[in-house]
């Protein structure tokens, strides 16, 4: 990390990484998702894909379901490349600063009317989300990366944060509320396809309401120290992964020895 990147991540709790993945890889992933979208739930389940729906678009009854989350790493293919994305992984190394695993890999669909309400903030004291700096080094747990697979503007329901809330000492009065782009605390993060936002889970985050007919597609990939558990199915891999994987990918998925540091 450059001194400015270090300063910005500490100051705001997130870092914007433009063009984190190539247009080509984005295209491959979108093609695969198009194919997956044609499956019904039963067909998807048979392939090991589980959709968790978010039916919160009461104002837009024509668009149901408004969105879902899904364990897309079990599709394999182009998604495996992001396990150890060369553009972003060095940041995770500096932010966690000890052996870590990939503990969750989730695909998110957000249709019209859908949004993610604000959640988290330092004062929750969630032990698995802690943002910390000691002796001039980051010591974070749970650092996440949001990769945009499509261009997403404020109106199209982009990611949104409260910069600095990863150090907030008081309960977040906006917990559970829709991000309001006009509030002086709120910063929406519009992205181009292939851009990434790296953030600490202690940061208050959510997404704007998607007011368009365009579907937002995002990958959320999460990393944590070795002693922390993976998030169940969200690290399921496809057949043959172990043979295909690089040694770093294997270590990130299996997790390094959890208590090796003595």
């Amino acid at each position, binding site marked *: 990390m450059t001194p400015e990147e270090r*300063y910005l991540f*500490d*100051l705001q709790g997130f870092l914007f990484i433009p063009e984190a993945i190539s247009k080509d890889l984005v295209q491959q992933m979108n093609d695969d998702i198009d194919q997956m979208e044609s499956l019904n739930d039963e067909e998807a389940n048979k392939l090991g894909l589980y959709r968790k729906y978010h039916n919160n678009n009461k104002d837009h009854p024509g668009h149901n379901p408004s969105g879902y989350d899904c364990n897309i790493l079990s599709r394999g293919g182009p998604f495996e490349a992001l396990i150890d994305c060369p553009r972003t992984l060095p940041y995770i190394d500096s932010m966690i600063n000890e052996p870590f695993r990939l503990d969750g890999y989730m695909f998110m669909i957000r249709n019209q009317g859908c949004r993610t309400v604000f959640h988290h903030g330092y*004062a929750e004291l969630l032990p698995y989300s802690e943002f910390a700096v000691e002796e*001039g080094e980051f010591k974070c747990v749970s650092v996440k990366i949001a990769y945009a697979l499509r261009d997403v503007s404020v109106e199209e329901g982009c990611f949104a944060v409260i*910069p600095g809330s990863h150090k*907030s000492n*008081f*309960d977040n*009065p906006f917990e559970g509320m829709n991000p309001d782009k006009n509030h002086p605390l709120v910063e929406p993060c519009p992205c181009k396809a292939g851009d990434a936002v790296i953030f600490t889970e202690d940061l208050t985050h959510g997404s704007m309401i998607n007011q368009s007919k365009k579907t937002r597609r995002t990958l959320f990939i999460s990393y944590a120290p070795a002693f922390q558990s993976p998030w169940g199915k969200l690290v399921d891999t496809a057949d043959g992964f172990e043979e295909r994987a690089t040694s770093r990918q294997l270590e990130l998925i299996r997790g390094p020895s959890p208590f090796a540091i003595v």
Partner: protein
Amino acid sequence: MEKKTKKKVPRLLKLQTGTGERHLSDEERHFFDIKGYLVMENFFVPNQVNEAREAIQDMAKKPSANITIERKDYELELLNIVEAGGILEDAIIFKRLLQPMEEIIWGSQVRLVASRGLIKEPGSIETLTQGGKADPRRYTKYRCFVEGEFRCLMTTCLIALNNCSNGNGTFCIIPASHKSNFPHPYSNTSLESVSVLKDIALKAGDAIIFSENLSHAIKSPINEKYLWLSYQYGPSYMLSWPGCEASKELRTRTMDSEIKTRLLKTPYYHPWDYYYKDIVN
């Protein structure tokens, strides 16, 4: 410990440690803790703005005995401007200013540490303070505890006496920088190129309270002279800024105001020790 003596202490000097008195709303507290500042619109009504502007301009021409003028390039600093009286004296006890200061610093044991009138001309120097942990000025330290109380050191109230926005003589800050763990990397960067620096648009009469530990600067005005008023508060034991000690004259004329008297007292730790000192002297 000295419980007997404590009881004798007049209300004026009630020890504030841990009283947990709160004046800010939940949203204001959350905002100030995250951002390091609070804006107060229309802190002065137009008449007060005019009175303040005139008083500062008069003092700049012919300063009274207890006010010192420091001239820098394209900038005039009138130290101890509270001595000018009128609105410049009365503002120090405005509730909208004092209640946040008391919550942010240390209850009723706060002092006025410095007061200044500022006249900025086009070309005035724009300096971005360091802020955060790397700020060498420990007297600016920001302290706040999870779901608890603030214990900040120097906290500033800056009052705009012109409309300042769009980079024209604007006050600007790096939000959240009062909690920075790293030094900002912008020492050799022009303010315009600092991506996280935010202009705070203020109208004449608006005020901003901020932790002195927040990275901040005042931009140079483009055409005219811009006037500012600055009051800095600290805990009761913080010394006055050199040149900002309250004069005997000021102390005498504010004797009837309990709050002014307290804010202008010489520094003290325990109120009862201060009281005790009065007795033995």
